[in-house]
């Protein structure tokens, strides 16, 4: 009995300390950011001028900020707040990690330091965000003239690129199709080791799960546009690079969707098949696969639809398809021709959307 209790007490103390650490870390980050935003705003309104005699731009101010000081200051303030939480009330981090204590629960936000801090933090975020992204309402409302050219072009599509556009549209659709089709078998195989419910029992399964998940999270984190640049330098400009880029991204996306579907299946049929003396492959084939095929199909068609849209952007950087001829026309300001191409893309996307919705409706 004794040693067990001891272990329990130690575990509880350990957990409490971990919670304190987490709370302080959250507060340190929030307070550090607050200090930076305050410094930014002070500099922005101080009227300081740069070497060229102009007012400092947002980027120049960002360059001047004292990040290390803010980090240190944030940490110090966070430590103080958590140390004196009885006098000051729970900090945001503390409330987040351990919940609001009973005596604070009935207080209005204006009655707590935490409430005021939150309000000021939100204000500061919008204020500095406005300046950093250089929002300019006046320009937005008064300088529409130039853009009107584009809109006029879009409304008067030129027939000059219609033929070429249609040809490349076919290429775009097939590009998306090939990327999706080749992604299916790979994602299908990877989805099983990526499903938590199938990989709990043995050590090998758990390792496979971790490997598959880590790899796919990494691949998915890299934008298709970046994959396109990688594959363009690998296999050269053209639709093949686009297929590869969309393929890699689709494998990762489909693996995630498929494995989530596997995780939500009814385990009853799996158990029933296992109870007949079936082997684990047979359990997958009979107990899992029939349950996940219809949603898999539906996700896959949806993915094709997404890939058609994405291939336009991929084409912009040289990955083939209709985006490839769109880019030079945008650069040259051939708005009529841009209009034709945009309408072609929009029409296809709309059509794909309708068709894929219809097919998915029928499957599920």
């Amino acid at each position: 009995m004794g040693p067990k209790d001891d272990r329990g007490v130690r575990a509880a103390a350990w957990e409490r300390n971990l919670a304190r650490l987490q709370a302080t870390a959250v507060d340190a980050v929030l307070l550090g950011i607050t200090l930076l935003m305050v410094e930014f705003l002070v500099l922005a309104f101080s009227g300081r001028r740069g070497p060229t005699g102009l007012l400092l731009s947002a980027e120049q101010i960002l360059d001047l900020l004292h990040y290390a000081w803010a980090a240190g200051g944030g940490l110090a303030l966070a430590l103080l707040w958590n140390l004196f939480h009885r006098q000051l009330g729970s900090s945001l981090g503390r409330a987040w990690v351990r919940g609001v204590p009973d005596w604070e629960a009935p207080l209005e936000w204006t009655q707590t330091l935490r409430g005021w801090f939150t309000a000021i933090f939100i204000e500061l975020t919008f204020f500095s965000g406005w300046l950093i992204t250089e929002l300019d309402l006046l320009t937005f409302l008064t300088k529409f003239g130039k853009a009107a050219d584009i809109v006029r072009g879009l409304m008067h599509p030129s027939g000059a690129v219609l033929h070429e556009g249609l040809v490349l549209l076919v290429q775009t659709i097939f590009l998306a199709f090939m990327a999706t089709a080749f992604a299916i078998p790979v994602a299908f195989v990877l989805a099983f080791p990526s499903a938590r419910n199938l990989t709990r029992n043995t050590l090998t399964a758990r390792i496979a799960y971790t490997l598959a998940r880590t790899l796919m999270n990494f691949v998915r984190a890299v934008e298709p546009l970046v994959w396109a640049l990688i594959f363009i330098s690998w296999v050269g400009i053209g639709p093949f690079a686009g297929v590869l880029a969309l393929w890699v991204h689709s494998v990762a996306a489909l693996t995630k969707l498929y494995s989530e579907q596997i995780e939500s299946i009814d385990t009853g049929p799996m158990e029933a098949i296992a109870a007949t003396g079936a082997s684990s492959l047979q359990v997958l084939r009979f107990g899992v696969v029939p349950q996940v095929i219809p949603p898999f199909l539906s996700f896959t068609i949806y993915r094709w639809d997404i890939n058609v849209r994405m291939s336009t952007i991929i084409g912009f950087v040289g990955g083939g398809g209709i985006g490839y001829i769109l880019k030079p026309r945008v650069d040259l300001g051939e708005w009529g021709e841009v209009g034709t191409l945009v309408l072609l893309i929009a029409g296809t996307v709309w059509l794909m959307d309708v068709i894929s919705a219809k097919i998915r409706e029928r499957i599920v």
Partner: protein
Amino acid sequence: MTVESAIRIENLGMVYPGGVRALEDVTLEVHTGEFLAVLGLSGSGKSTLLRCINRLIDPTEGRVWILGEEITGAKGGRLRNMRRQAAMIFQQFNLVKRHTVLTNVLSGALGRSPLASSLVLSFPPEEHERAIAALERVGLGDRFTSRADALSGGQQQRVAIARALMQEPRLILADEPVASLDPALRHSVMRHIEALNRDEGMTVMCSLHDIDLVTRYATRMVALRDGRLVWEGVPDEFDQRTFKEIYGEDAQPASNTGF
């Protein structure tokens, strides 16, 4: 060992990963050829006990023998072979809904089927004949092309019984096989399980919570309470006092026809 017992359970214990103790020190013998009913309130550990026997879950303590061979600790092909001897019937039927009735019954033969062809749902003609015969026995000979989820609950459970029959087992483990069925349909399903026991000589271990069904079908009964075995006897010995012992002082029999 002169008369080999169908199932032998020794000091079985189960603690779930969350820390819930579902079984404690259960020792029990199921005799060859009997129809053993397992009683107990919901949460008393009936499903856990049945699932430990064919190792759908791994007990944390104790040992289990099926037909004289120890299944606890068995692995791979040996475990699968032992599972083939003990077919299971579930409260929720657990059919593969999108497969046809025939494929569902054929899946009972997976344990003896070649891997490659079974993965493309292909079974030899003699298995098809067996499957049709099994379906005819449960009165569904004309429904083999239907999708499983097109059938009513009672019919689905009969398909599950045909799947169990297909397995050609020597034991049947049934976990509340009629609990999700309309009371009016319960006997039609129970009678098929009874037939497996009487005509095929299969040993049946079946959890039930309806006392009427127990006294009508079981040859012997055991009761669980909070994961412990609290009573063993034959239906004739079952009375008000045992009822209170199993279900607690506050319990009332739902009907008194059983006593």
